């Protein structure tokens, strides 16, 4: 009786595995995110009252090192910095991009991934921007 049940379970599992009835679109496009694109951008971005992109990038790099990240990549032209930190054996990856808004402001945006999950807690980004603001000696303005 038990053997039969087990056999059925194995057959169902094998069928599900072979059926391939899943779509890659949702996980590639992050369609399962509970937040809208606008919400994401809002908590992942801050505006700073400076036009000095290089200095801001250097401050971002210093802040990431202060937060125990090792820098993976930095591109002055594109304005991106990517770093990795190991938290409880799990990699926490972050990309920070810096782009001008008008002539007097820069928009700094961060997005992070912890293990295989996108970091979707606004508080984590708030913490990052607090750390960055201290190093910039500038206030981080919410972007609307």
């Amino acid at each position, binding site marked *: 009786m038990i053997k039969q049940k087990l056999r059925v379970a194995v057959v169902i599992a094998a069928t599900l595995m072979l059926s391939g009835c899943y779509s890659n679109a949702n996980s590639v496009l992050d369609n399962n995110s509970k937040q809208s694109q606008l919400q994401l951008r809002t908590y992942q971005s801050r505006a700073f009252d400076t036009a000095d992109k290089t200095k801001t990038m250097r401050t971002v790099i*210093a802040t990431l090192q202060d937060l125990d990240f090792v820098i993976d990549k930095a591109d002055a032209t594109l304005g991106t910095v990517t770093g990795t930190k190991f938290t409880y054996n799990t990699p926490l990856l972050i990309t920070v991009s810096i782009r001008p808004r008008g002539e007097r402001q820069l928009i700094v945006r961060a997005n992070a991934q912890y293990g295989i999950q996108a970091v979707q807690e606004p508080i984590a980004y708030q913490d990052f921007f607090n750390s960055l603001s201290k190093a910039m000696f500038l206030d981080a303005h919410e972007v609307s």
Partner: protein
Amino acid sequence: MWYKTKATLVLSLTLLLVGCSTVPDGSLQLSPKSLERRQAQSRKFATTDETKMLIASMEVLQDMGFLISESESKLGVIVAAKTREIDNRAQRFAQITLSLLAGTSTHGIEKTHNIRVSLVTIPDKSKKDTTVRINFQREVIDIHGNLVRRHSLHEDDLYQGFFAKLSKSVFLEAHDVI
């Protein structure tokens, strides 16, 4: 038998659910140790030539066997990595022997580590010095090739040793020895 199957199912489901972990609190907050660590990871050099410091740093990384994986001279950034055997042969031999005698698993016995480093040069505000900052991370791999742990390296002697080499490199290059 049925109990075992049930237990396996419960365990599998738990593991599946545990997979949905979120980022630990405070991961992106500055820790009280940040300043102390920054000081250990940084040294000032009496030069305004940032490119020269970056090249001297790259030379030291190469002296240490690191391969440069990324660099952006406009921002003074070098990223490098290397894989080495951990200096624990005697300990490893003892662990393997004990495991074999006791019939326990040899998984987790550390053998190699992948070391990653990011080095940054920072022009001083006073325009007299250039600061070099470096930080290290590693992944430890066991004798079966599986990942054991990942962590940042904060040992003071590591940073002191690196800057001793860098000071020597700057001196050698300043005097055109190499």
